[in-house]
Every structure is written in C-alpha cells, then in structure tokens.
C-alpha cells in the first residue's frame, strides 16, 4: 500500500461524513448550575418581608439601601444580586428573560435523581429514553449531524446528550489531536479508524466520531483566538468553557448544542450573602455570561443561552447559615426576540406556614419542560416537540415574544 499523505487521508475522512454542514443557523447553549442554585438570592423578592424574616443572615440587602451591598432594583418586587451587575445591561435591553417558580415533579430532593430527570427531559418515574438534547438533535436534524454538532465543555458528556448521534466532550480545542511517536499521525488515525470501525460494542461510534472530530478541529487549531468587542473572559473554568464555545460558534463548524456546567451551588453551610460562598459563584456566572454575550454580539440571531439548575433551595436558612434542598427556582434565557427585561411567571410566596413541618421550598408552578419546550419550539424552530417530551403537555409562559 503506498504512503498516503495526510491531506488525502483527511479528505477521505471528510468525504465519508456526507452531510457536514459548515453553518448552523441556530445554536443552543445550555448552562447547568449543579448542586441546586439558590435563585431567591439572585432575583430577590425584596418586596416580600417574609424573605428578610426567614433569611436573617443570608438575605441580600433591600435595593433602597446605600452602598455596594444593596441589591439592584429590577421592578417593584424583584431586585438583582449585586454580583450579577454585569448582566444587568442584557436584562435591561430585553434580551434576558427570567421565569420564576420553575422545577420538576421530582419529590426525592436528590441532586442526582433530579439532575438525571431534567437532563433526560423526563417526568418523575416516566422515562423518555436518553437525554433531551439528544432527542432534540435527532428530531431536529435527522442524520444531518457533524462531529461538532454537540459539544460539552469538560471531561464527560452530560446526561442530556446521552444517546446523541455525535457528541464530543472537550476542554479546549487547542490540543485536540493525536500525538503519536512517528511522523505522519494520519497513519495512526487510519489504523484507529479500522480498529474502531470493526468494533461491535459501544466503542465503535465514539471512536469514529472522535477521529472525525480531529479532522474538523485541525483547521481551527492553527489560529489564535481573539474575543470580539473587548469581551473580557474572567479567569475561571466556566468562562474558559464559554470562550471555547464562542470560538466554535464563530468558526462555523456546525455547532448546534453546547453544554457548560457551573458546579458548587449546594450551599448547605454558610452560604453567605452579598459576599461569600454563593456570591463567588454568582460573580463567576455573571462575569462569564457578560463576556460571552459581548463576544458573540454579531451572532445574536443565532445563539440562545439557557441557564437552569436541578432545584432551588429552601426558602428559609438552616441552623448552619445555609439552605437545604428546595423545589422551585428561577430559570434564565438569553437571546433575541424574548419577552425579556422582566421576571415572568407567578411568584408563589415563601410559604412560611409550611416550612416548620420539614422539607419545603418555593412551590413549582411551571414544569421545567415548559421552559425547554418554549425555547425549542419558538427559538430553535423545532416542529415536533412531542418527539423530545413525549406525552408532555406544556403550559404557557410566553418566554418568546
């Protein structure tokens, strides 16, 4: 067999994957705040006196207060955590919508059960099979997927992409290549293509997908990335992940779905208020989102960002100055054409009477799948929502204008 040039090999691989679309006109970025984020301290119901009464040490100060500790007034009822100031312009421009009292019907209070249920897009004990983003990709695109259609930032694929036809977990695109000992690594890639192609088990598809991804990334790797509009990504894994996502979006490699996690919201103990444990995470979130938004100003029609968590926390603080697992939370959506600049959804109250009896949280008024359905149907132009959430009847929130 004659020596095969790298270029020939790459071309052959590229040809094999028939429908490699260079552009995707819509990209959904899903940010999961893992651990159960206390959104009551992010979008503060300052006009409800009970909030201050049952959170004596961890509440965020009233917006009427002076100084940098005061929360930022959004309307007559809600204010914003001061560490979320970087996203205030996005909110004011009407490109960010917040939905109050979102959650699951899962009563276990378990992080893992609830995260799994949400990432699978299931109802409690009702399994639809695989991840909701995987089903979306199948329902939306048929077999028209590229190896970079779905990317998760981090070492592992999230459950939401379980069963996705082609999904890749990456940390940064810079070092996505085979580092073989001899010259011409294409020979090694070719051998791996044969070996994984012949495998009859679960490794065959991820093996071949990985090899195809390598050829796509080859071209991106050579250019250094400069964020647009002076976007300043802070020094955090979260922001670095968003930066890689922005880079892929602007490179038109066919990115349809991206997943980024921000961990650490399980604040049972000394949660903090304007500063402290949770405030540090809020700052990371706000600064990262602001940089991402600035960097992608030219892609606003294309990109929708969804920010969810598995559950909110108890409405009251516990004996160790933290909050235990609750139920409802505030979901965030950033994008064009939203009914933005407001907190949508009914405020369920803090249920002071209930909490003495034990496990409680903000009541869930809107099933989380309603939020996902409205985003998929109205922003991602998905026709058959039933293929993603079979048997689910979405309520009506009206996130998209």
């Amino acid at each position: 067999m004659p020596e095969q040039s790298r270029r020939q090999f790459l071309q052959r691989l590229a040809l094999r994957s028939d429908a490699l679309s260079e552009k995707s006109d819509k990209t959904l970025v899903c940010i999961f705040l893992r651990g159960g984020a206390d959104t009551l301290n992010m979008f503060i119901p300052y006009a409800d006196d009970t909030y201050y009464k049952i959170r004596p040490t961890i509440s965020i100060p009233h917006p009427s207060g002076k100084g940098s500790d005061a929360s930022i007034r959004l309307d007559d009822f809600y204010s914003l955590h001061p560490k979320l100031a970087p996203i205030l312009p996005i909110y004011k421009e009407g490109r960010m919508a917040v939905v109050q009292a979102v959650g699951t019907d899962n009563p276990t209070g378990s992080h893992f059960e609830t995260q799994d249920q949400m990432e699978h897009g299931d109802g409690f004990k009702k399994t639809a099979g695989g991840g909701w983003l995987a089903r979306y990709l199948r329902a939306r695109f048929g077999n028209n997927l590229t190896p970079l259609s779905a990317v998760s930032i981090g070492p592992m694929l999230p459950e939401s992409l379980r069963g996705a036809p082609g999904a890749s977990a990456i940390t940064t695109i810079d070092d996505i290549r085979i580092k073989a000992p001899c010259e011409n690594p294409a020979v090694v890639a070719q051998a791996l293509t044969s070996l994984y192609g012949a495998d009859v088990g679960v490794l065959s598809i991820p093996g071949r997908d990985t090899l195809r991804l390598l050829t796509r990334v080859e071209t991106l790797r050579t250019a250094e990335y400069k964020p647009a509009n002076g976007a300043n990504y802070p020094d955090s894994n979260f922001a670095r992940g968003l930066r890689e996502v922005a880079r892929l979006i602007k490179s038109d490699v066919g990115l349809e779905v991206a997943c980024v996690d921000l961990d650490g919201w399980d604040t049972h103990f000394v949660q903090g208020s304007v500063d402290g444990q949770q405030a540090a995470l809020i700052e990371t979130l706000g600064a990262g989102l602001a940089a991402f938004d600035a960097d992608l100003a030219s892609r606003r029609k294309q990109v929708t960002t969804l920010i969810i968590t598995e559950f909110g926390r108890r409405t009251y603080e516990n004996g160790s100055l933290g909050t235990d697992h609750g139920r409802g939370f505030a979901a965030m959506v950033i994008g064009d054409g939203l009914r933005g600049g407001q907190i949508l959804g009914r405020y369920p109250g803090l249920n002071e009477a209930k909490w003495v009896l034990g496990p409680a949280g903000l009541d869930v008024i809107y099933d989380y799948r309603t939020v996902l359905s409205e985003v998929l149907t109205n922003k991602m132009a998905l026709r058959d929502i039933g293929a993603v959430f079979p048997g689910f009847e979405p309520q009506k929130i009206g996130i998209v204008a």
Partner: protein
Amino acid sequence: MTSELSRREFLAISTLLGCALPLAGCSNLNGYVADSFGGGIPEKISVPDSPQIDPAFHLISRAGFGPWPGDVERINKQGAKAWIEEQLEPESIDDRLCDFRSKRFESVFLDPGTCYEFKREALRKDLCRYHLMRSVYSKRQLLESMVEFFSDHFNIYIEKGDCIYLKATDDRSVIRKNALGRFHDLVLASATSPAMLVYLDGKENKKEGPKGIPNENYARELLELHTLGVDGGYTQNDVYEAARCLTGWRLGSDSKRGTAFFDPNLHDDGEKIVLGKKIRAGGGEKDVAALVNIACNHPSTAKYIAKKLVSHFVSEEPPQALLNRVAKRYSETGGQIKPMIREILYSNEFKESAGSKMKRPFQYVVSCLRATGADTMAGDEVLEYLTRMGHGPFQYPTPDGYPTEANPWLGTLLWRWNFAFALCSNSIETAKVELADLCNAVGLEDLAGIKKSPATLFAYLAGRRPNAEESKAFKDYLSQRNFEDEKVRDELVGLILSSPAFQKV
C-alpha cells in the same frame, strides 16, 4: 508470587531508599529496587493463544487493575481459586516492594493534626500519588480494587473545606481498614469520619434551640447513596429523623484539630423513628450506631450493595440470579464483604462476562502502566492525564462518586490514545517503560520479529489473539511504517493500548 525477600535484604534496601529517596532521580532507584527483588519484567513471558480472553487475564483485570508482566502465568500456575483466596487475605501477601515505593508520600500516614502543618498542594499530591502507586504496584490487587470501589461509594471531594487534611485518615481507618471487612463497620466508621463530617456537613448538624433545624445533607446521602439506594423505600421523614440521630458530632480545635467528638448539648436526644424502627430517647452518641444498624440491616441495602458490587465486577446490567445470591450472602452474614466477592468471582456469570465492560480512565491508565511494567513515581504528568479525563483520585465533587457505567466516559478516547502514545515513547517524565525488554520477554527479539508478529504483542496486552479485522488493521499500519526506526515499536504498542480491545475489561 515472587520469591520471598530476606529480612536482611529488605532492611538494606530500606535504609538505602530512606536516605536517597528525597533526592532527584529516584525513579532510577525505584527501577533498581524492582530489579533487585524480581519486581520488574520477567525474562520470559508466555502469551495467551486463544481467540477468547484468557480466564486468568480476565480475573486479574476485573478483580484488580490488570496483569503486571508475568501475572497471568503466575495465576495459571497457582490456580484461580488459590489466587482469589490469597487476594481475600491481603495480609498474607508480601507487599513490601509496593510499601517501599509508596512510603515517600509521608503525609498519608499522619494524623489530621499533623496534616494541618502541610500545604494543601503537598497533601493533594501525596494522596493522589499514593493511591495511584498502590494501584499500579500492590500485589494486593483485589484490596486496591475494593479501595477504589469504596472510595467512590463513600466519595469525599478533597477540595471541599478541610477535607484534604482529613482524607488520608479516612482512607486508612475507614476505607482500607474495612474494604474487605463488614459493610456495617464501614458505614459506621464513615459516619463519624472527620472527612465525611466536613464533606457532607455533619459537623454542622446540631440541635439548636427549641425550633432547631438539623442539617440533612449527610443523612440524606446515607440513605440514598450509602445504604438503601434512592428507591430503597425511605421517606423524606426518614431523612429528617436520621438527621436528628446524627446531631451533635463536631470536630475539635487546637490540639484536637481534625478529630471527631460528640457534644451531647448539641444532640437532639428525643425519640426518633427511622424506617419504622424506634430509637429510644436518651441514646446520645449511640444513636449513630443504632441508625447505621437499622439502615444496614434493611433489605434494600442488601439489594443495593449487591447491585453495586455485581455492576462493578460483572456487568452494567447485572444478572438477577447473581444479584439475588449476592444479596443473600449479605443478609445471612450480616454484611460481610468477602462472601459477596467470593459469590461473584466464582460465578459463571463472572466468567462469561470477559471483555464486556469498559475501563474507566483510572483503570485504563493503571492497566497501561502495569501491562508495560512501567517504572513510575506517579508524578504530576500522570495525574494530569487523569484530571484531563475527569478521573483524578478524590476529585469528584458530588457524593455519588465517579460514574461506574461506560457512557459518561465515552468522550475520553482521545486522551486515552495520547496517554498510551506518550507512555510508550517515554515522553512522560515520571513514567518510563522498557519496551525492548517487554518485546524480548514475549519472544520478539528485534524489530523484524515485531513486524512479523504484531499478534504476539496484541495477545500479551489484550489477553487474546487478534481477530481477522484487527490483524488486518495492524498489517496495513505496519506496511506504511519504516522498520529501521525503533519508534515504530513504541507506536505499535501505543496503538494496541489505544485499540478498542484494551479499553475493555
């Protein structure tokens, strides 16, 4: 087993290592020690010659981290049964060679109070390197495998709070001490382990005033993850009652820093009802033992632990008949771990499952190092690969421990390939291989021999002969490489370690 070391030789080398280890270049010394005691690559290794995975290869791949050069022959000679029984009595296995290699990680042997005098970074490195070193070099492979299993089951994330100062003690006196003991003891030790009290906020769980609100974090995970399982039949009220039982455990300060104690004034000493069983008022610090007994004796716990063990050793979809037998062993022995392992390793279900699971990154890296007989100090570069693949020891943030199924790890293939190639080309600073010696041992004396018979190398590494498609892939590959260059040998071994066959177990 290698020949017994004489006590005098042992002491001589021990002294030598004690003086020289803090110096640079110790990896060579390690190699020297290994060679001196027959821990290196044997001169001759026979290679499996069947299209099916060799049963001894399968056994040590599942009950441990895969064979060290010569292990498969050794097990076949000794007999699988004798090997299993020996592994179940780890104290009977001379492991001094591994002890030598891992003794330099001094902080893992210290009490929490002393650990507070170290920097976090130093403690993190010692812990992770120690864990990796023992997995690679210990002859007590089953014990190390169970240590990994229970480190996930009772997961502790060392970056949370002060966990890093306390995990070494947890590793010694909770996990290693009980990994082959009784499950109840393991749970009880874990419940008041300082590292666990920090990780799941147990130290903050106290009765506070008449309207006291306990911190439920640990109680919930105790029932959901450590004992009954999420579908085990407990209620939210059971979580609440369990949390009440656990109020009052604190960590000391000053000279008692990092040690657990019980403060009766912070304990809710009223009556509790957990899982329908009454715990009488006034139990004080004995409430925790009563609670652990109720949870561990619950039939759901037998089923849940059986399921986790069978999933670990046999299949992601555990056969029901085997599950029933293992759960029965648990119940009839009051939670003894060894009878459960015996039931599994001697079962037909185990034997028939060869090659059907996927290695997690940690097992992949360790099995690569073992298969190549690598000389490693498990330094930063090796750990970096694990971190990149999302499987650094004790680095999993949430209490469910690293996922055990294949799916979440399918995105790590590229990093596995690059680890294999880096290892085989000796470009990892703290892990060196002698592939010429290894090839020699399997009867491939030069590059021409390797070119002629890549199947021999494959069979050594994968435990079986390659199939037709695999043979063709290697033949095509070799036809495009120049065999004057020794790097081709390195690349070929790396390619075999990268192949689907070596990802499986």
